[in-house]
């Protein structure tokens, strides 16, 4: 895929030209992290920790220091094996996020993936707001070869979820994937609507394994932190899907979110076809974060 090509050239070229660990060296690291969208706070924390470790371990070589840094972020971003339990359980997956990040596409991709694993999947079209959202999801259901429960444009999304839960139960489905409308996290009424959907699932399907995925566009900057926080107030977020990783954005905000909110990235989107969803790989992600264009000035 496109991302892999970006990644393989690796991290060896960075921090070249440094013979000692000095202020310039740390500044270079700071620049790389900020340019990767980690944000000021996470970047400062990382650098402070690094400095402490360098001192503690009496590290003199920039290369060793670099490795230390990379390993610690990798460690932080590593996903536990249990993170994917919902794929095996009888589960309800609620997919939420702001407008246009890739929720519907992710639901389609996930449906295809789970179907391939032999799971019986039902998807709920709980975006009854956006023009043609239902048609879009129907096409994905069709591609994945799974059933979709929909509602009329303008219908109450919670009622669609209600119907979908009933249908998933009666059909003995393994996984119910719920697509929801894009909503900005600062819109009270839309967040309330989401809370209601969440409540319906709790009430109607109490023994289902619950997974709530927040979809984040990898291109997004610091606002993603605010998104994750505020969606977290409405539902128990269990993971993040970082989409559009096939572009040039590094998705570094996920590191800030992991530090501050402890929410792991579980999948990445790397394109627009049904195969373009991968399990998150901390090694690849961090390597890509530290890969800078060789031809950049300075």
């Amino acid at each position, binding site marked *: 895929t496109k991302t892999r090509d970006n990644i393989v050239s690796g991290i060896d070229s960075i921090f070249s030209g440094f013979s000692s660990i000095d202020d310039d060296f740390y500044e270079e690291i700071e620049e790389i992290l900020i340019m990767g*969208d980690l944000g*000021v706070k996470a970047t400062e924390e990382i650098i402070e920790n690094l400095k402490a470790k360098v001192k503690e371990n009496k590290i003199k070589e920039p290369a060793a220091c670099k490795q230390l840094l990379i390993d610690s972020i990798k460690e932080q971003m590593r996903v536990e094996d249990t993170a994917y339990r919902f794929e095996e359980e009888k589960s309800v997956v609620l997919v939420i996020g702001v407008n*246009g990040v890739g929720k519907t596409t992710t639901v389609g991709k996930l449906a295809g993936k789970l179907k391939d694993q032999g799971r019986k999947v039902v998807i709920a079209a709980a975006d009854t707001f956006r023009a043609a959202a239902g048609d*879009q999801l129907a096409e994905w259901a069709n591609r994945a070869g799974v059933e979709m429960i929909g509602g009329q444009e303008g219908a109450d999304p919670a009622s669609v979820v209600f119907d979908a839960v009933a249908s998933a139960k009666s059909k003995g489905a393994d996984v119910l994937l719920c697509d929801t409308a894009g909503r*900005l996290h600062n819109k009270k009424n839309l967040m309330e609507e989401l809370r209601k959907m969440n409540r319906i699932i709790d009430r109607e399907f109490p023994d289902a394994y619950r997974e709530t995925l927040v979809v984040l566009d990898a291109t997004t900057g610091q606002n993603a932190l*605010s998104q994750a926080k505020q969606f977290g107030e409405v539902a128990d977020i269990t993971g993040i899907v970082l989409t*559009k990783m096939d572009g040039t954005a590094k998705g570094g905000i996920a590191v800030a979110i992991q530090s501050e909110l402890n929410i792991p990235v579980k999948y990445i989107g790397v394109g627009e076809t049904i195969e373009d969803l991968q399990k998150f790989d901390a090694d690849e992600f961090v390597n890509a974060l530290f890969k800078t264009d060789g031809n950049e000035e300075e």
Partner: protein
Amino acid sequence: MAFDNLSEKLQNVFKNLRSKGRLTEDDVKSALKEVKLALLEADVNFKVVKQFIKTVQERAIGQDVMNGLNPGQMVIKIVNEEMIALMGSETTEIALKSGNEITVIMMAGLQGAGKTTTTAKIAGKLKQKGRNPLLTACDVYRPAAIEQLKINGEKQGVEVFSMGDKNKPVDIAKAAVEHAQKNGFNVVILDTAGRLHVDEEMMDELVAIKNAVDVTQTILVVDAMTGQDAVNVAGMFDEKIGIDGVILTKLDGDTRGGAALSIRAVTGKPILYIGMGEKLSDLEQFYPDRMASRILGMGDVLTMIEKA
């Protein structure tokens, strides 16, 4: 938000300097450190920030602190002025051809930025101005993209031209312009598929459209929440296709929108409108000064300073 208190921080930096009449190099440097952090938190590109801080620093050192302004406010005033200057000091509108000549507007941008929605919003604006717009469905890839445009067109009472998803976008664009000529439409707005700036094939498609029909305005639609990568995106769209203006969407959120500054810095192209919601009436004029205070996160302080 973390940096809403930028002005407070600056007051602190200058706490002991109230009596000074002139900003020294050291005063300015320590103040600009705070400004730099605020801009980075707002997602202004790192390199743009560095350049910007340099400019402000040069201007601020040695300035006389004005009557009614303390040193902190003085720095903010200069920062604000430079930001507005960078963002284009005045509001701009989409350039339209006069009379019955057909204006062709091509929308472009990354996936999910808001092109299709904005296409319909613009149509509504133009209709109000007495124009007769035709929307054109050139996205033949995204599931239900055509249907989405049709529904939005209908809501706006504007015709949507479509040839399904089996034709090439270039041919659809050509046919749309012909259709407009025959049927008395004077603006054709092309809704194109979302694409990555690094996807050469897809970028070439837009170039092909531009070569095939006489595109009057190419508008880049950018999500206001975009982070550091905004410079790469805007830079490459401008370089490969050539853009005439930018529309920032989703500013109804709580993003500080620093991407606006980055995009202006790399392309120099005006920001035409801002998207302020999902409703088709939610398209507003762009005001550089308001954007500047949003990015700095301190509207009130600025209003006060403006008056001083």
